[in-house]
């Protein structure tokens, strides 16, 4: 770049300092308030007799929510500031009449905006390290923690800023710029959540929870930033985010070269984006409405109402934004086309050409089945063994595999629509096949109608034994049994003698074996609470209910039953 060109950029930068330099100052003050100030406060409040050192595991613990807000909103503000010149008609005309090439202009603005992020971060980091080293206190964090925070925060702020620039080039108004940048930030997560939440309405048995994992949340940068407290970024993640920023920066330049100056004041700078925006909003609103009314209302009537009403509202609002007037109702043909396309899409999925809904594996192919109420244990099975009452289980015996498969086949055949007032049990059925393939479905099952199936599975010895910790082999020995009055909560019986405990356990185990399946599906009456303390320090409780005949006999033999009843 020649000296003259540098001078052109210097002119713009001087102007930037005057016009938007305050963003850098705000950025610095916010970070000082979020990180350096609490360090100073802790120092001034430290009392060596109490030893009240703050419990920070890393810099993100200092003021987590506040830090997230800064890293999320300031880069958007900076992006809005540096591209504002192209969003206002007169300034757009003025700036674009100047002898500066567009690429040069935008690169200059991007660098300036980025420096408004880096500069304050560097100062805040140095100030924080200075405080940690200078103020004599046994700090739980050190300089390396601050540098980790600096690096990760800079990466997150850079990506959000870069995204802000892309959106800024795509739109023609500052307000829409800020709103759309936020939407874009949450869009990947949001659209997946909406799609997965709607799938059970379209495909009977679709296990939405299985796909709505926490991983999805990583895709929304502000949420990811808030989670940095416990989950540091890997080199791979940092590399990917930097690559993404680079991609956004290059994309903005490419787009800016093609952006019409007259887009200033328009909602969207490129006309090709308008239908994309309008139908995109209509589609997202459609999914939102369907999901909401699918949950709240019952039956297809309300769900379809949700789809139609919300998508219509979304379509109309998007048209209003794009056309900058509320008189958009003559554009109804576009909505009809959208509705038709959505109907076709819906029917295509609903007709299930790949046989997703009706697929029940052959008995011979199945290695084991999963039967439970949540998808969580399907994903991480080692959690199950630690539960005191494990509803979710892998079952291996031939009988149980047959029973679960039979329930599955029946559900697929009946496709029962659960009533809002009946007893509903969410059921997750999974298969691990001999060739390693896995298959998982989730259903809402009316309990009464399918009781025989529940009884066959949950009444089996295999299921029962895995259900109760006390029936499983090799649990940590019980050291103490406390029986509490359920109304007062006061301990009325305490057994500490190993022999007594042993004999009590025999009685309760007999009760557990005999407990009917109904009591596992809710509807327990607590007459008292038995509390067990294990040798490993764990504690768990079981109820005394109408099925606890052996326990009752045991207590009556020792004249303890009355105490519990009082």
């Amino acid at each position, binding site marked *: 770049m020649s000296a*003259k060109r540098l*001078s*052109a950029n*210097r*002119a713009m930068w*001087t*102007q930037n300092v*005057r*016009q938007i330099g305050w963003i850098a100052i705000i950025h610095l003050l916010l970070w000082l308030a979020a990180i350096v100030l609490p360090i100073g406060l802790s120092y001034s409040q430290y009392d060596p007799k109490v030893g009240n050192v703050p419990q920070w595991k890393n810099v993100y613990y200092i003021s987590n929510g506040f830090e997230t807000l800064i890293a999320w909103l300031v880069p958007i503000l900076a992006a809005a500031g540096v591209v504002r010149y192209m969003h206002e008609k*007169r*300034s757009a*005309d*003025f700036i*674009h*009449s*100047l*002898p*500066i*090439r*567009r690429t040069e202009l935008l690169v200059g603005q991007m660098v300036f905006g980025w420096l408004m992020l880096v500069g304050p971060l560097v100062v805040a980091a140095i100030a924080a390290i200075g405080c940690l080293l200078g103020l004599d206190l046994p700090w739980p964090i050190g300089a390396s923690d601050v540098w980790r925070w600096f690096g990760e925060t800079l990466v997150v702020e850079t990506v959000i800023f870069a995204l802000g620039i892309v959106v800024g080039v795509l739109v023609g108004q500052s307000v829409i710029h800020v709103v759309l940048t936020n939407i874009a930030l949450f869009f990947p997560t949001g659209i997946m959540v909406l799609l997965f939440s709607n799938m059970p309405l379209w495909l009977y048995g679709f296990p939405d929870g299985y796909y709505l994992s926490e991983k999805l949340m990583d895709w929304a940068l502000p949420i990811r930033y808030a989670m940095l407290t416990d989950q540091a970024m890997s080199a791979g993640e940092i590399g990917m985010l930097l690559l993404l920023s680079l991609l956004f920066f290059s994309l903005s330049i490419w787009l800016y070269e093609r952006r*019409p*100056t*007259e887009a200033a004041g328009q909602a969207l700078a490129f*006309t090709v984006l308008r239908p994309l925006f309008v139908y995109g909003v209509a589609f997202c609103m459609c999914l939102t409405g369907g999901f909401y009314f699918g949950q709240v209302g019952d039956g297809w009537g309300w769900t379809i109402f949700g789809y139609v009403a919300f998508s219509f509202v979304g379509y109309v609002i998007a048209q209003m934004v794009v056309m900058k007037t509320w008189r958009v109702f003559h554009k109804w043909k576009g909505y009809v086309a959208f509705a038709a396309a959505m109907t076709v899409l819906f029917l295509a999925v609903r007709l299930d050409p790949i046989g997703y809904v009706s697929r029940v594996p052959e008995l011979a192919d199945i290695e084991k089945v999963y039967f439970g109420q949540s998808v969580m244990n399907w994903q991480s099975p080692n959690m199950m063994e630690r539960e005191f009452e494990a509803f979710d289980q892998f079952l291996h015996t031939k009988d149980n595999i047959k029973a679960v498969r039979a329930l599955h086949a029946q559900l697929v055949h009946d496709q029962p629509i659960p009533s809002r007032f009946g007893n509903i049990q969410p059921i997750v059925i999974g298969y691990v096949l001999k060739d390693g393939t896995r298959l998982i479905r989730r259903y809402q099952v009316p309990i009464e109608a399918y009781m025989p199936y529940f009884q066959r599975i949950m009444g089996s010895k295999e299921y029962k034994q895995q259900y109760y910790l006390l029936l499983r082999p090799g649990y940590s020995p019980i050291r103490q049994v406390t029986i509490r009055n359920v109304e007062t909560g006061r301990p009325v019986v305490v057994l500490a003698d190993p022999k007594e405990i042993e004999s009590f356990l025999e009685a309760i185990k007999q009760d557990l074996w005999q407990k009917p399946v109904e009591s596992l599906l809710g509807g327990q009456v607590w007459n008292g609470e038995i509390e067990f303390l294990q040798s490993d320090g764990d504690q768990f409780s079981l109820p005394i209910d109408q099925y606890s005949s052996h326990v009752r006999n045991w207590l009556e033999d020792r004249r303890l039953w009355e105490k519990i009843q009082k």
Partner: protein
Amino acid sequence: MIQLVDVTKTFDRFAAVKGANMMVPKGAIYGLLGPNGAGKTTLLKMMAGILRQDRGTIAVDGEDVWENVRIKQRLLFLPDFVYFFPHATIRQMADFYEQLYPSFSRGRFMELQSVFGLDPNKKIQQFSKGMQRQAAFWLAFSVQPDVLIMDEPLDGLDAFVRRHVKQLLIEEVAEREMTVVISSHNLRELEDLCGMVGLMARGVVQLERDLDELRAGMHKLQLAFRDGCPGELAERLDIVHREERGSIVLLIVRGEKRRVEETVRAFHPLILDVLPLSLEEIFMYEMGGDAHVRETVVS
């Protein structure tokens, strides 16, 4: 020299400029006339490299203007609503221009301070609309561009300042051969300034003339003949307009003055007066039937 060939610009299906052609010679003051909505502003903004044409070419000294730093350093655009950075003073704006335009002259800036008499350290936004426009002129003249493009620049200036500005413009053109394009919806405003005029209507430059040629190329004749106006005369003259006042015939004709006179004399008229036409009248006749355009430009 500025040359536009078949320039077209469409906004959102609305064609603002539809295949306009235009030629501004170096050192000319070119007036672009036309009613509101004719496409003048759009055309000027394309000339200044602000808007990009959909079709056609716009060249200054043979080079494309779009994204051409070399050309844009020599070209300044003065919009109908002047823009300054928020809270900027004239001095700060001058610093800004100085860094962007190599031809900016500090000396000229100081010199013009006495002409405009504005306080360079006051925020421009605190000035009145007319003073802001003067500030824009002050800065524009300090830049000393080779090409100055102005969109309705004299609106909102009082007669005194207007005269000053016109004087400065004429001086600059004379001294440095600056090329000026200036738009207006009023012919009278440009009459004493422009050497060339283009008339724009409905997105097209309808006609483009040298004003002196225009003046020399159309005449008003007052004639009388013994036996009424011979029919043959009408065939031999390019008559734009004809009016009869008793025995006197009033003709507006196109053509060179001497030839027109010779042609008429051959028919031995009793009276032959060649009267001067005002520029307004010339335009009125040139534009013929387009009443709306005629009235806006000429009124």
